[in-house]
């Protein structure tokens, strides 16, 4: 007899569908399907209609939430019903609620339209208290969008009966214990404070001039890579800090400075960072000033 599958219902709030499409990028989908039954997904449907799903009373294992949430019917409704009616029904039947993406976790971009009335499940940006004030079965997987592996790996761990260790923002530590900076190909330039003078080049760090949030953003993007091959920073584009509660910051392509000094990486004191930065910057490392690949030399 095949092992029992876990059951999933996927519900969307105010969303761009980006987390759904990111999930469809999961490369080992047959393995996923061997462990899970998707009872309902808005883009794919399910065995019955959405109405049938709501009329049911049976419990299921995972409710995946995608998109920002609101109790206000004028902002959010689902197939002519108040969204709260739908969410209250489904959340009471789910063993675990997984917030896929920054919108469901913190409110994300769409919260900016009306920060008082739009939020994540348990957070409004950084502040605790979102759609619900307290709920003990919620896991946040922020990111704009969520990485397919963050979602599937977490679901599989829970399916296998493993415990998932969470940080204060209810993010799994095995994913969000890393910084985007970890594994970035431009790390050496960061160490020696060599700026990327111009975009569109392999060389230089994007932290000093181009707004890169890699050293401040919790996620393993540069460990597991996106679409199995790359990441924003590997493609020469600054990390936008999309896994953090304050995404999107203002002036995303600019480094915010204080007395011409950039923000320090997570957990590193200004004194430590600026002392070391000053020393590193005082050396001119010739190799790092040259092209990485120079066909003539």
């Amino acid at each position, binding site marked *: 007899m095949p092992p029992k599958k876990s059951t999933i219902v996927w519900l*969307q709030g105010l*969303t*761009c*569908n*980006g*987390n759904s*499409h*990111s999930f*469809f*990028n*999961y*490369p080992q*989908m*047959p393995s*996923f*399907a061997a462990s899970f*039954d*998707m009872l309902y*997904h*808005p*883009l*794919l*449907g399910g*065995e019955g*209609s*959405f109405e049938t799903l709501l009329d049911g009373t049976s419990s299921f294992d995972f409710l995946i939430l995608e998109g920002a949430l609101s109790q206000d019917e004028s*902002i*959010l*409704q*689902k*197939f*002519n019903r108040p969204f709260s009616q739908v969410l209250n029904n489904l959340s009471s039947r789910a063993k675990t609620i997984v917030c896929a993406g920054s919108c469901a976790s913190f409110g994300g*971009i*769409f919260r900016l*339209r009306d920060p008082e009335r739009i939020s994540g499940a348990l957070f409004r940006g950084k502040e605790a208290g979102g759609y619900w004030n307290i709920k003990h079965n919620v896991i946040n997987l922020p990111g*704009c969008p969520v990485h397919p592996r963050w979602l599937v790996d977490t679901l599989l761990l829970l399916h296998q009966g493993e415990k998932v260790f969470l940080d204060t923002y209810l993010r799994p530590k095995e994913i969000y214990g890393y910084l985007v900076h970890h594994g970035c190909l431009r790390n050496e330039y960061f160490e020696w404070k060599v700026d990327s003078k*111009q*975009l*569109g*080049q*392999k060389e230089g760090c994007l932290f000093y001039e181009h707004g890169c949030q890699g050293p401040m953003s919790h996620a393993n993007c540069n460990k597991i890579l*996106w*679409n199995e*091959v*790359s*990441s*924003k*920073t590997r*493609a*020469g*584009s600054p990390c*936008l800090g*999309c896994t953090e509660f304050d995404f*999107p910051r*203002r*002036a*995303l*392509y*600019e480094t915010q400075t204080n007395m011409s000094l950039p923000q320090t990486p997570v957990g590193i004191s200004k004194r430590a960072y600026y002392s070391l930065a000053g020393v590193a910057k005082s050396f001119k490392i010739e190799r790092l000033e040259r092209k990485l*690949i120079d066909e003539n030399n």
Partner: protein
Amino acid sequence: MKITKEIIERIEGEATLELQWHEGVIDFAKIKFFNFRGIEKILEKRVLYDAIAITPRVCGICSHSHALASVLAIESCFKNAGDVLHISQKAQDIREIILNAEKIQNHIKWYFFTIFSELQKLSNTPFEGNAFKDKAWFHAQKAIVESLKMGAIFSGQWPHGSFALPGGVTCDPVRSDFIMAQNTLEGIVAFCEEYLYGMPLEEFLSFSSALQVMSSVRRLSYGIETMIELGFDRIGRSHDRFLALGDSFLYEEPSKAVKTTVLSADSKHVHESLEHTFFSDTHKGYTYSKSAQYRKNYFEVGPLARMMIGKDVLIRDFHRRFKDATLTRVVARMSECAHLLLRTRELLSHCDITMPSFIPPKANPHDLCGEGIGIIEASRGSLIHKVNVLYGHIHSYDIITPTVWNLGNGDKENPSVAQKAIMGLDSIEKADFVFKSFDVCSVCTTQ
């Protein structure tokens, strides 16, 4: 008069069709989209370049089209301010490769996740969908993964990459990146040849007659046969007017077509209307979708429009036989997919990596004032971004998405494209499928 409200499921987002019936036939249809997010407002007062990061979040399935439309709009601001940016051929090629990757996945996803499944359901009522079950569904999903991987080699990620800025692209690929992209692309081509077209791409693209396509035994011909059996070769016809305002390799210049007559077109004739929306009247309005017209007429945008404007021989043959019926619309999209695969193969093999990826603007973006417009031919058609900038900050931002062209609301005397296609049908099931033939995306519509 009987009025029914039909929830449309299994699309990008959700929609409701309010159908007015007269003697068993749909007399008029109101297309309703809810859950407005307000991205245009969110952008106001922000630094100009923030639009490049935020507008992709309009839509999870065409995010890179939005990123590019936004970049083009800002580049046009620079141009209007006297700083004409030179975008290297390499950067233009990479932008197109990334865009094509998005369109290829869209077309495969739409056919295998939506259209094929809907057709099976229509011809066999107990059918419960193919997702996570059918072998071909898994193969299609794998092809989608590969298509986006091919694009992500250059864009860093999909969805929601931010790979382009005014002046070019941010990546600086090496030759092995192109080799990997080429190999990845060939995997997608192999999938399409085996599961979709049932023949080599080149053979499919050499066809000039609908009958040649139907002689194959693969999914596309199955779809065509089923659509003919169900009558979709005769229904779902709209105004037979087409528009493509962005650039494409499929034709020489932005154009419109009325039936088979093609004439050049200019975005200055585009008019956006708030009629029937909650924006214009909170009580009488019934949707968050704006609508768009060209010289006060509704025009269809998307693959069928591009193929008609490009005078594609095969699609012209379908059109000659079936006009702009649902069948022609579906085949046009899947035929465009073949063109995109071949075009991307050419781009990957010819791209000159010695060129610069990025040439920065001379003017400081913080000093920019004025207006700009960017137009991209996205998966579903012409996507327009307009920005008004004041000293480097966004004063106003206006987005006209392809679905606003196809799925907006007119009135009974002058119905929109999808409304016209639905009017006259005699069943909800037919209306649902005809509606879906436009590749509905509610998130773009209600950005």
